[in-house]
């Protein structure tokens, strides 16, 4: 027997099992990995912030007795008919094509019950969505699939999509297996072929052109509809300032945790900035232009709880938007489908091959049998419940900070747990008065 002490087998941090598996996959297939969802890597996030709550210098509101308002009006700058929402949480743009018709219907049902809006996506407006969404935002995308003036006029707002957090600077691809006759018809393309969504608009480049494009959209819709501009989290100060210049009523700012139907994993994980890092520069741009609260800011990308909502609002957002969380509320990645997930080589919580159209939960698919697994009425109720919980949680925190409206939350209500979060959110590191980048050390 050899008594010599042995060195334990040591895995490389740099070449982890996960990294090596991807190298082997790439070597085998010769192509990059495509998936749905947003960044999975750990980045500084709202979890790294805490509310201070009321104390000697400020008093709280009674949790079950004193009002804490949650309403928000979007589009007050130019639109004749701004959107009035009961809660500061909207449903983000997700396309029919990437999602099934019943899933779009469920989003509309849930959002309407909760008093908020849904948003179309690449692929046009469906009856399921318009019919069940009390307030519907119609996305104006580079592909212009299904774009037409009639739908533009029956929308409640128009969102010009410049970029999204999962892939700032990237377009999209809906693979052929999801291109049924209906999806293809709405996009004026043959059934079964891969459909590319362009990364930039076909008839304008830059904010000067966009200003004219927005003029055209307003002229077509009698200046009634709020015009949103959606940007991915890239250069938030300048992107927001230029959006104001281009004439936006509302700016939607989507951080890198924001999801997508499908793009390259390398893109999702390596392009863009965390949501937490985007908000303060965006708010500063609005403040510098005297437009904070005049042009509304909607923040998205990784919003999961009422605490996330409250923290985003405290940093200066007017509302937040949820996509991935809404899908989870509908039933995405539900443990009851674990057997099916395993058959696809994955597991509950990790399923992200939304582009393949084989979603066991029946949400990111066009397969009739899988689609039938989602009951849009029941799923809509779940979404309504979830939105209600987010709102109640947000109100709870706001009352604890002594606020009679969730918009009264402010950066002074927050501290950070990490230096990174303190720097990004521009609030003090807990227990200090130090805001990295703002002096003091």
């Amino acid at each position, binding site marked *: 027997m050899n008594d010599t002490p042995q060195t334990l087998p040591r895995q490389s941090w740099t070449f982890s099992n996960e990294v090596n598996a991807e190298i082997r996959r790439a070597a085998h297939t010769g192509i990059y990995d495509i998936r749905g969802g947003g960044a999975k890597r750990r980045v500084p996030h709202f979890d790294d912030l805490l509310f201070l709550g009321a104390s000697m210098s400020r008093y709280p509101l009674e949790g079950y007795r004193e009002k804490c308002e949650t309403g928000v009006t979007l589009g007050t700058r130019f639109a004749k008919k701004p959107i009035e929402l009961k809660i500061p949480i909207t449903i983000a743009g997700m396309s029919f094509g990437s999602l099934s018709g019943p899933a779009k219907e469920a989003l509309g049902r849930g959002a309407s019950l909760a008093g908020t809006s849904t948003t179309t996506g690449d692929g046009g407006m469906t009856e399921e969505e318009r019919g069940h969404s009390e307030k519907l935002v119609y996305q104006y995308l580079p592909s212009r699939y299904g774009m037409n003036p009639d739908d533009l006029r029956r929308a409640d707002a128009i969102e010009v999509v410049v970029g999204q957090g999962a892939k700032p600077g990237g377009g999209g691809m809906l693979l*052929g297996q999801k291109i049924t006759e209906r999806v293809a018809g709405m996009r004026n393309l043959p059934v079964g072929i891969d459909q590319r969504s362009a990364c930039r608009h076909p*008839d304008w480049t830059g904010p000067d052109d966009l200003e*004219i494009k927005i*003029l*055209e959209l307003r002229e077509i819709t009698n*200046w009634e509809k709020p015009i949103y501009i959606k940007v991915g989290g890239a250069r938030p100060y300048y992107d927001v300032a230029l959006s104001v210049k281009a004439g936006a009523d509302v700016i939607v700012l989507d951080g890198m945790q924001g999801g997508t139907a499908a793009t390259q994993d390398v893109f999702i994980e390596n392009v863009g900035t965390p949501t937490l890092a985007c908000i303060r520069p965006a708010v500063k741009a609005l403040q510098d232009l005297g437009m904070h609260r005049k042009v509304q800011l909607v923040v998205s990308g990784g919003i999961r709880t009422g605490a996330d909502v409250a923290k985003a609002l405290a940093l200066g957002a007017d509302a937040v938007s949820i996509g991935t969380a809404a899908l989870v509320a509908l039933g995405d990645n539900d443990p009851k489908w674990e057997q099916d997930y395993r058959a696809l080589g994955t597991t509950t919580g990790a399923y992200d091959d939304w582009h393949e159209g084989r979603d066991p939960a029946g949400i990111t698919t066009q397969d009739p049998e899988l689609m039938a697994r989602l009951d849009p009425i029941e799923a809509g109720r779940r979404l309504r419940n979830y939105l209600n919980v987010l709102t109640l949680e947000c109100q709870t925190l706001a009352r604890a900070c002594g606020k009679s409206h969730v918009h009264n939350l402010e950066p002074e209500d927050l501290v950070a747990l990490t230096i990174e979060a303190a720097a990004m959110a521009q609030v003090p590191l807990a227990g200090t008065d130090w805001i990295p980048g703002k002096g003091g050390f």
Partner: protein
Amino acid sequence: MAATKQAVSDVQTLDMGQIELREVNATLQAAPSTNYTQFEILNTRGSHAIAVGLDAEIEVTVIGSTGYYCAGMNKLATVHVTGSVGPGVAENMMSGTVIVDGDASQYAGATAHGGLLVIKGNASSRCGISMKGIDIVVHGNIGHMSAFMAQSGNLVVLGDAGDALGDSLYEARLFVRGSVKSLGADCIEKDMRPEHIEILADLLTRAGADAKPEEFKRYGSARKLYHFNVDHADEY
């Protein structure tokens, strides 16, 4: 008994020296509820978004030249511009006819789903980009990257085409009488079959073009990029 609507033969004049763009477009968009069917727009001074979002069988004559997006998202109406047009003329048109006597800047007919766009002069780059069913007839030349990602419809060019014609083309048909500087990815020359001659003859007639269908070559998609294949990555 409701009164029968009768067309008024008079031309209603909209003078942009006197009224704002909003009033011009509001008047044209309200045309279905009036008896006017003919309009003329004066003193355009290169304004943007003139005659956009129309939705009636009316005739609009724009005297002079325009800025961006003239006749954008047109439905049913006939819009005739006597001068030249800026970028994005007839963008996303659904139906109707747009005629430009002069030249057109970039993105003419971009993403348009239907109708006929006739440009009697030249069209700049990206003419017919992402077109989705429109018919475009250009009497002169077209610039580079025209018909990029064009999905369906017909682009007819009596003159020459610039670089990268029909790059990443889907099912649109391209007919060019003159030279083509270069073809874009997945765009190839195709046989001109009798049905194409027929389509072309009809379009030339409707566009008032003095040319014979037999003088044209047809270009279309090789359909090699319809399904993403890593072996075709060098094409991009």
